[in-house]
Every structure is written in structure tokens, then in C-alpha cells.
């Protein structure tokens, strides 16, 4: 049994008086494709943001690829991670956002090459060659010189995926990456992600309301409610035979809202 790529151990997350995560523990295995589903406000985004170090935790520990994420050994004791440690850990993790977050002042190609050149010292020519490969994979090679403002939402999101992949992370986090898209643009982004799931051995965490996609994409589905894992299992089991009443009623609502399962 290999050791987990991500080990979340009893973490707590609060925003002021609001406790969002209260003693959450979960493991994600290397290469595993994990779908996080659940009602809005259940803490799914918060989990991804914590893993991307965009949020701090109030308690507990997270291990990523064998190292502590928010802690480090200092003078033989476990201390809070400093910026340098966080930067080392972030190399392992990439994230794609709901609203793309492309750099509007840079063309598609420069959006992708910026971080590899600055953070890894990749020479421009090599960074551009790699960027073009990735753009080709997401079907955007012909838009390399376009500015983000000239792209559709689906195109922006495919560029954002290529940008995250350019740093070759071991873990990719996808937070409702199709929720901001017009319905007819959803499929082009999902197709890219299907390819990634099949062709790479990255560990992937996906927050989504596209239940049909989660069913095909995921090795395992976690159903969240109020910051807790209510039910987890293989997609076929969760979607066809949910055991918990809350999972059942959530899926009923999702289907009523027009999402396919």
C-alpha cells in the first residue's frame, strides 16, 4: 500500500465565529481522481484553497507528498512553515479557479510561460515550446498570441488549465471550473479534463456540480455537508445507491435542477 499523496489530519478552519471545517480528516492516494460534491457552503472550496495555501488552518496537520504543508522542522520541533517552505510545497500543487484568473495584461503564451521562467528559471525558448505543447493539448495553439479579453470563457479556462500544467505539479485542484461558463462551452473544458485524467498520473481533486462528469472522471466521490464527509465511495455507488438520506436529497435536487447523472 503506497503512502497517501495528501493526508489531511484533523484540520479545523474558522472564519471569525464561523467554523467551516471541524476536525476533518481524509487521505488522497497518488494518482487518485477525487470528486468533492455537496451543497453550496459545505466547505469544498475551502478545502482546495487550504491545499493551495490560499487559506491558513486553525488546527490540525496536512501532509503533501510526505512533507508537512503548514509546518516545518525547526530546531527539532514542528513549527509554523515560513514563506520559503510554503514555496517549496506549492511546487507540488496547481489550481484552476472558477473565474480563470488569467493575467489580463499578458497574451495567452505569456500567461503560461511567466511562472516557469520566473520560478524555475526555464529559458524563454524552452518555456514557450512547452507552452505550445500544452496549448496544443487544450486545443488553443492558434490563440497563443491573443489577449485573454479576446477569448470565450471556455477558451480562457483551457488556457488556465495549460498555465497550471506548465509547472508540472503532482496535484491539480479544480474548483468548479465550468460553473462560470455558458452551457455550450462546458463540454470543451470537460473534454480537456477527461484527457488529463486518462493521460497523466497526477493526483486530482475536483469540486463540481457536473455529476455526470464526476461519475466518469472520479475514482472516488466524497459527499460533503456542513464541512463533514457524509458519505464516500465509488462513483457508481454514490450516484446509483446513495445510503445517506442527505446524499439522496442532494442528488435529487441536483437532478431536478437539470444536471445529468
Amino acid at each position, binding site marked *: 500500500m503506497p503512502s497517501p499523496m495528501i493526508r489531511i489530519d484533523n484540520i479545523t478552519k474558522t472564519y471569525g465565529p464561523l467554523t467551516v471545517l471541524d476536525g476533518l480528516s481524509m487521505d488522497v492516494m497518488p494518482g487518485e481522481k477525487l470528486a468533492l460534491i455537496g451543497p453550496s457552503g459545505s466547505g469544498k472550496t475551502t478545502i482546495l484553497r487550504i491545499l493551495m495555501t490560499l487559506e491558513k488552518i486553525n488546527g490540525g496537520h496536512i501532509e503533501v507528498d510526505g512533507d508537512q504543508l503548514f509546518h516545518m522542522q525547526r530546531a527539532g520541533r514542528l513549527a509554523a512553515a515560513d514563506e520559503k517552505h510554503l514555496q517549496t510545497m506549492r511546487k507540488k500543487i496547481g489550481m484552476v479557479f472558477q473565474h480563470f484568473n*488569467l493575467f489580463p495584461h499578458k497574451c495567452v503564451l505569456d500567461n503560461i510561460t511567466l511562472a516557469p521562467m520566473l520560478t524555475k528559471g526555464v529559458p524563454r525558448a524552452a518555456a514557450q515550446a512547452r507552452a505550445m505543447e500544452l496549448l496544443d493539448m487544450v486545443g488553443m495553439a492558434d490563440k497563443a498570441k491573443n489577449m485573454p479579453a479576446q477569448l470565450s470563457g471556455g477558451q480562457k479556462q483551457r488556457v488556465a488549465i495549460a498555465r497550471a500544467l506548465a509547472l508540472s505539479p503532482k496535484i491539480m485542484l479544480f474548483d468548479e471550473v465550468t460553473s462560470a461558463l455558458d452551457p455550450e462551452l462546458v463540454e470543451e473544458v470537460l473534454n480537456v479534463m477527461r484527457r488529463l485524467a486518462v493521460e497523466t498520473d497526477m493526483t486530482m481533486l475536483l469540486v463540481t456540480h457536473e455529476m455526470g462528469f464526476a461519475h466518469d472522471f472520479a475514482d472516488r466521490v466524497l459527499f460533503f455537508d456542513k464541512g463533514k464527509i457524509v458519505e464516500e465511495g465509488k462513483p457508481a455507488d454514490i450516484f446509483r445507491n446513495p445510503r445517506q438520506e442527505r446524499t439522496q436529497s442532494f442528488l435529487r435536487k441536483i437532478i431536478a435542477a437539470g444536471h445529468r447523472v
Partner: protein
Amino acid sequence: MIDWSGYIGLILQGALVTIELTVLGSALALVMAFAAGLGRLSRFAGVRVLATVYIEFFRGTSIFVQLFWAYFVLPFAGITLTPLQAGVLALGLNVGAYGAEVVRGAVRAIGREQHEACVALNLGRYHRMRHVILPQALPLMLPTFGNNAIELLKGTAVVSLISLTDMTFQAQVVRAQTGSTLIPFATILVLYFAMAMAISAGMRWLERRASRGLDGVRV
């Protein structure tokens, strides 16, 4: 009949001094604006306090008093400045304090999602500022910077008080020597206006350059 050509030449000499003051003062103001504006956003409390004190002090006291300090009081501290140096110092520090608030406001106007994208791409603080935040904040600063530069140009007239022979000073000289008020002051009116127009045009050109490709994204 007065031979005006010599007097106009005097005023043009003054115009060069005014331009010199404006250019050097603006350069110093720009440096101070970024230093103090970014200083106010620093994660170090000491730097934030220092920047705040500078900004509040120079915005809260008049350019007139600042100039007199630079020229007449600093020598007591062993720092003797030429009138031009004193003028540039006072104008640059004064306008820089206003510019600092512009820099701070523009940087803060760049959305959180841009910072988060940088964290997700593992860009450090310096790279984040240099390659992502400032290039987007700059187009937001330029219109106000243009106004500040014009304010600085108009403010240069105060240096005639420390006997620097700028355009206004020369106009007064011409007036005293010729007894005519209209001609010298009409001349400098036109010249000040032309300089302000030149600044505006330059700024518009810079704005177009800096916001190239950003069309339809913001502002």
C-alpha cells in the same frame, strides 16, 4: 518703443528653469510615490509607519513652508542646497506624497483573484508585484499622475521666492524693467498652458501604451 526680443529671451530662459524644475521634481515625486505608496502596503509595520508619516507630513504642510525649510533651515543642519536643488527637493517630496496615495490606491484596486493566481503559480512577492500587479495598476495611476505633474508645474512658481530665476521670476523682472504687466504675464500664461498641454498629451500617449491589450478588461 521697447525692444521686446531681449525680454522675451529672458522669459524663455526662465521657461527652461521651470521645465528643469518640473522634470526633476516629477522624477523625484515618482520615486517617492512608489517608495511611499508601496511602503504603505508593506508587511513590515515599521515601513508602513515611516511611509504614512512622510505622506501625512508633506500633505499636511504647505509647499511654501517646505521650500523655506529646504532652502533656509537645512543649512543649519549642515546641508546647503542650491535654489534649484531646494526647489526640486520640496516639489518632489510634496507631490510625491500625493502620488503615493495614487500608487497605493491603484495597487489595491487589483483584485484578490490576481494575487491568488500568483500564489497558485508560486510567484514570490517581488515577482507578483513586478510582473502581475504593477503592470495592471500602472494604467490606473497615469491619469492622476498627469494631474499631479501639472500641479507640480504650477507649483514651480513658488521657487521665485528663494530667488530662483524661473519663468514667473523672470516675468516679474521684465515687468519691473519695462513697466508693462500685460506682455510678460500674457507670455508666461501661454507658456505655462503649453507646458501643461504637453504633459497632458504625453500622459495620454503613455496611457494608451500602458493599457494596450487591456481594452475591455477594466477601466
